[in-house]
């Protein structure tokens, strides 16, 4: 069995276990898990509007997932995606609103570039500090999240009145700066879907190409695996680290741009840095380092979130349960060791059943382990 196959199996099993454990929790609290999950599915895919919403929420998740992936490849743990995303969100909306006299395509390109650059700078700072001074990028990115949150909030409240709708939110970017696509919005009954989803998919392919087919991508991976070895092999490891973090920040930033010009159409004061940034980590983890995995994981998470909004009303199950299920899925991904153990056992059982003829034996140990897993 190849390693990628194994990783995919772990991801799929984690999702199944997460759902099963969620069902057990529902049972414990006296809810019917079938109607709970049923209402989730019915809500998520029940109307074209919600399907559009899934794509819309997927977009920044894919981009932050990619962002995390790139940083991870270079040996960084980027917790700052949330701030990088917010910086770009504020910046892109400001750009789109500040230059209404420009032609539409220039507004969109300018706003996107401005946002991506802001995100990139937010990634460059921790990258530089780590490469040059060995500072922990984890702490710096966490702290930068706060810096960016409050800088962003204060920027929004001090924007000129003409581009603000209230004290703490800006005007909609409107037709000039929006990346919404009319026929897609019409098709999904005016959901918040936008060209962002196509951008996200194209960028995924691009990043895959960079990481797998270019020297830059190769040096990122080499530096991530062993910086010293990479250095002796003639790779400028510091520059590579800095560029990798900049790319990571720029990707998260692009996620923020799609939030600003697509999903929300404006920017408003936040209580905390956007959750999307943190969920990107979960997406990357569940995607287990694969690019298609990131897209699938993003789709799953946004379907769960959108579907979760219908659960309380139809089946009485609180929406928080969706957060629990997502957390459990990540838990199982994190404890992949347990699942690997389980896979080994099944293999052994398979081998045994192959020896003593075929039969349902292979199913038995799986079931018991599954309940153990859920109780854990």
């Amino acid at each position, binding site marked *: 069995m190849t390693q990628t196959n194994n990783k995919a*199996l772990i991801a*799929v*099993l984690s999702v*199944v276990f997460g*759902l099963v454990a969620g069902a057990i929790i529902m049972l414990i609290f006296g809810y*019917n898990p*079938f*109607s709970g*999950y*049923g*209402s*989730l*599915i*019915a*809500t998520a895919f029940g*109307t074209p*509007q*919600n399907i559009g*919403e899934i794509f819309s*929420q997927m977009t920044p998740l894919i981009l932050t997932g990619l962002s995390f992936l790139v940083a991870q490849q270079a040996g960084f743990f980027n917790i700052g995606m949330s701030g990088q995303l917010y910086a770009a969100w504020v910046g892109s909306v400001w750009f789109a609103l500040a230059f209404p006299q420009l032609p539409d395509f220039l507004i969109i390109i300018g706003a996107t570039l401005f946002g991506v650059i802001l995100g990139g700078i937010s990634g460059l700072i921790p990258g530089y500090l780590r490469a040059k001074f060995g500072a922990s990028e984890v702490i710096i990115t966490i702290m930068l999240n706060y810096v960016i949150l*409050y800088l962003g*909030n204060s920027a929004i*409240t001090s924007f000129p009145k003409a581009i603000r709708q*209230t*004290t*703490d*939110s800006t005007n*909609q970017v409107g037709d000039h700066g929006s990346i919404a696509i009319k026929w897609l919005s019409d098709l999904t009954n*005016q*959901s*918040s879907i936008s060209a962002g989803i196509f951008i996200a998919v194209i960028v995924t392919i691009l990043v895959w190409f960079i990481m797998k087919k270019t020297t830059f991508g190769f040096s990122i991976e080499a530096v991530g695996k062993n910086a010293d070895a990479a250095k002796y092999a003639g790779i400028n490891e510091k520059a590579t680290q800095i560029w990798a973090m900049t790319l990571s920040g720029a990707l998260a930033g692009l996620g923020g741009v799609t939030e600003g010009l697509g*999903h*929300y159409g*404006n920017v*408003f*004061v*936040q*209580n*905390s840095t*956007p*959750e*999307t940034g943190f969920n990107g980590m979960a997406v990357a983890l569940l995607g287990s380092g694969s690019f298609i995995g990131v897209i699938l994981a993003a789709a799953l998470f946004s379907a769960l*979130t*959108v579907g979760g*909004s*219908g659960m*309380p*009303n*139809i089946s009485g199950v*609180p*929406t*928080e349960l969706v*957060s629990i299920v997502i957390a459990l899925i990540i838990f199982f991904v994190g404890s992949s060791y347990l699942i690997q153990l389980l*896979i080994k056992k*099944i*293999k052994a059982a*398979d081998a045994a059943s*192959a020896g003593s003829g075929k039969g349902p034996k*292979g*199913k038995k140990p799986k079931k018991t382990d599954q309940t153990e897993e859920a109780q854990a």
Partner: protein
Amino acid sequence: MNRFRWTIVGIVVVIIAAVGIYFGVNSGKSGTNNAAGKRSVAIITDTGGIDDHSFNQSAWEGLQKYGKSAGLSKGNGGYNYFQSNDESDYRPNINSAVQAKFNTIIGIGFSLETVVKQSAKQNPKVNYAIIDDVIPNVKNVVSVTFQTEQSSYLAGVAAAKASKTQKIGFIGGVKGDVIDTFQAGYVAGAKSVNKNIRIDVQYANSFANAAQGRTIASAMYANGDDVIFTAAGGTGNGVFAEAKALNQRNTAANKVWVIGVDRDQKADGAYTDKNGNKSNFTLASAVKEVGQSVIDIAKQAQAGKFPGGKVVTFGFKQNGVYLARDSMSASVWQAVQAQQKRIESGAIKVPIHPKSYASVQ
């Protein structure tokens, strides 16, 4: 063997999905249905959630009260709430409410303005209301605003009258038009009693961060403030927690006060001091009857008199805002009532925006 294992996983997934869909479709059909002619109502909370001891909770309590009195049941076709844990939940929540065919959908809080406006355009047959913001000239949306600067003015009067140190505090949630009215009213009210009173002003930058509320409150009490007015939704829970912790280590005579917001928070201020005496540290509550406004809108919608396109303002007159007496002494209460009369007569014009967000000397 590989294929065998994948088959098992596949079967499990298919079974879960199939049974789920079956029950999902079924439960959708069998959802509670009320008698014909009753108009169903749903609220969409902002990120504070329905147990924030304040804004959203008040709305949900009002809706429950209405639902029971009108003979509706919780769920589809009756009344229900949709909780938003994050800004990205607003749109799916409002879509879910439309999909569940609620007749009246009420957005609790200004942050839902955009989604309410959009949803109202797409569904002209559904009635919408937005609390704390104005969506002008949309036929199926009623905008509800509260003159909270007036009740906050009274809160300022009460704080200045009750403070021994003549140092008081204000903790806001997130800067914005709504919280502006609280701060401006409070500062103006306190200054009307004592021009030289010191007012610490701080924002938690969140309506849902109780820990932050507690930290700020702790610093303010340490700084000599003995009354804190909290206009910060769920963040205020931390202020109450800090006041309780301080007061439990002290005698009731030397307690510090909290002025509650949105709901009458007297119950949150009950505690026992170090000598075992029962006491209460909620000086007053600047009540904003979000619940009452929800009831009013639901009733009007039921009667076929939904005030669509209009802006409904709740002030002292409609009992939409008032200062609950809670633990105010007779003299403080008298001063408050006198000022209320002057506001009602128009003798006092209360500002709705503060001059600055800095502390006032």
